[in-house]
């Protein structure tokens, strides 16, 4: 496996809070990497720096061997890095189908004022995309009329529509009712594996991390405190107690 994204010595502080204090992190092509850690640790900041929305005070980020720091967010997207949001960013007055078609149109170049958005090719691809996400029955609904689970999936579907090589997801299951959470995760895992997308996701739900991640990075006090496969990280009592600040999961004591 080759390195797709590589961060070296990232530093950024907001006032006194060091969100990143010398972060080194490699994302391997094809893997699902989870970033866990307490609220406010700097996990979303990492996504914002990688997508060009925040400039670190020091350090470098290379993607596919090229430095991307200082590039405009739009160019980073065009280079193959897409993201989804903790709070879904949908075009609320458009239908789900139009949202997906707009993302497809954005990938292909928006500049065609004379053919409709829902032309045959875009519509077919949008429907196929929504079908993979299990959203096709909701295609005609306005985006602001969806429940949180569907909104999250639609948000991620729009990022996937850009055909990225690297997808950064900020808490893909937060706000999703616990009953539908695992279904959302299963859908996501299936679609992303099919699309051969490398994924980095920030997540608080350790069950989701255990189910979904190939590797887990623990972000705390501006540093990567631990990095490894989920079975190792999630059963490490020190990580659980000192870094994540949660009680060990039931049954994990025996394993530890």
């Amino acid at each position, binding site marked *: 496996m080759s390195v797709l994204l590589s961060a070296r010595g990232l530093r950024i502080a907001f006032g006194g809070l060091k969100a990143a204090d010398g972060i080194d992190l490699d994302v391997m092509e094809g893997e699902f990497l989870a970033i866990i850690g307490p609220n406010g640790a700097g996990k979303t900041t990492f996504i914002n720096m990688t997508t060009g929305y925040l400039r670190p005070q020091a350090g470098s980020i290379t993607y596919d061997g090229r430095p991307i720091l200082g590039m405009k967010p739009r160019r980073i997207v065009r280079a193959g890095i897409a993201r989804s949001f903790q709070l879904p960013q949908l075009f609320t*007055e458009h239908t789900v189908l139009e949202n997906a078609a707009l993302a497809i149109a954005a990938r292909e170049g928006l500049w065609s004022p004379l*053919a*409709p958005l829902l032309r045959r090719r875009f519509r077919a691809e949008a429907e196929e995309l929504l079908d993979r996400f299990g959203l096709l029955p909701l295609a005609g609904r306005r985006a602001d009329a969806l429940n949180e689970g569907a909104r999250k999936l639609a948000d991620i579907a*729009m990022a996937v529509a*850009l055909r990225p090589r690297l997808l950064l997801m900020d808490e893909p299951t937060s706000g999703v009712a616990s009953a539908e959470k695992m279904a959302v995760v299963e859908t996501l895992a299936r679609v992303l594996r099919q699309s051969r997308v490398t994924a980095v996701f920030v997540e608080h739900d350790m069950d989701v991390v255990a189910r979904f991640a190939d590797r887990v990075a623990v972000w705390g006090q501006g540093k990567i405190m631990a990095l490894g496969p989920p079975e190792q990280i999630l059963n490490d009592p020190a990580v659980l107690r000192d870094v994540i600040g949660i009680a060990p999961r039931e049954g994990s004591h025996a394993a530890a």
Partner: protein
Amino acid sequence: MSRTTEILLALAAAALVLLLAWAVPWLRFVLTIALAKGLAVLGILLLLRAGQVSFGHALFLAFAAYAVAFGASTIPEALILLPLAAIGAALLGLVIGLFVVRYREIFFGMLNLALSMVFYSLLEKFYAITHGTDGIRLPPITFAGQTLGSEAQGWAMLVLALVLALGFGALVRTYLASPMGQALAGIKTREARLEFMGASGRSVLLAAYVLSALMAGAGGAVLAMTSRHVTPALAYWTASGELVFIAILGGAGSVFGPFLGAVAYELTRVYAAALVADAWQMILGMVLLLVILFAPGGLWGMGRALLARRRAA
């Protein structure tokens, strides 16, 4: 409403306009002016889709009107003056647009207003060139090489205005359904997402802005050639406000709205001014209030709701 229905409706409306102008001769002038303003309002509608209101679009209308007035002495041909003036307005829209599309909402609206007032002052103060508030009278112009009598000239301008209204109406309708038009509506709800899809919200708005300036320019050229007289009042901020007023009166939901609104506005103005000379602005104010309160879809929205009810009954 299907595309065929809309095309038939547009043609029927055009026929109705011609019929009205034939039956009531003095209405021909009023209807031509209304259609000319409707073209500019079509541009306001485009920007409204992005949630942006320009309180300065009369700038482009006035610019093209003065371009016609200045150009008429060297090129006295309507079919050359009109496209030149409209393209001139579009180029000015590009230059101003590059600056104003960086701003949103109140800042966008006020910057447009400020720039239009700068233009107004230039027209008013440079008396040696523009004759100040006296304005400029247009010399006689030809139409497709023909020198027409005032009667034929009036008809030619009305037909020209109708053709432009139908053409730009169809163009804007197509544009709004296209990715560029849909992205324009996306600026209103989630511009940040456009950026995260690798698209530029500013460019999307700029394209619409230039098109809106082009249409306002076409309207301004028709206005100048119809009234045969241009004054700085064309660029005054109340003229811009009038365009926004008409957009809301007619309804921003369809390309029919601007023209329906413009015709209703001009007719109300003419009749109200004749009947209650001192109170016609109050009447317009009341009408706007009623539309905002009870018919947010404007006259077009009201008409469509009535049609739908009749069809359902």
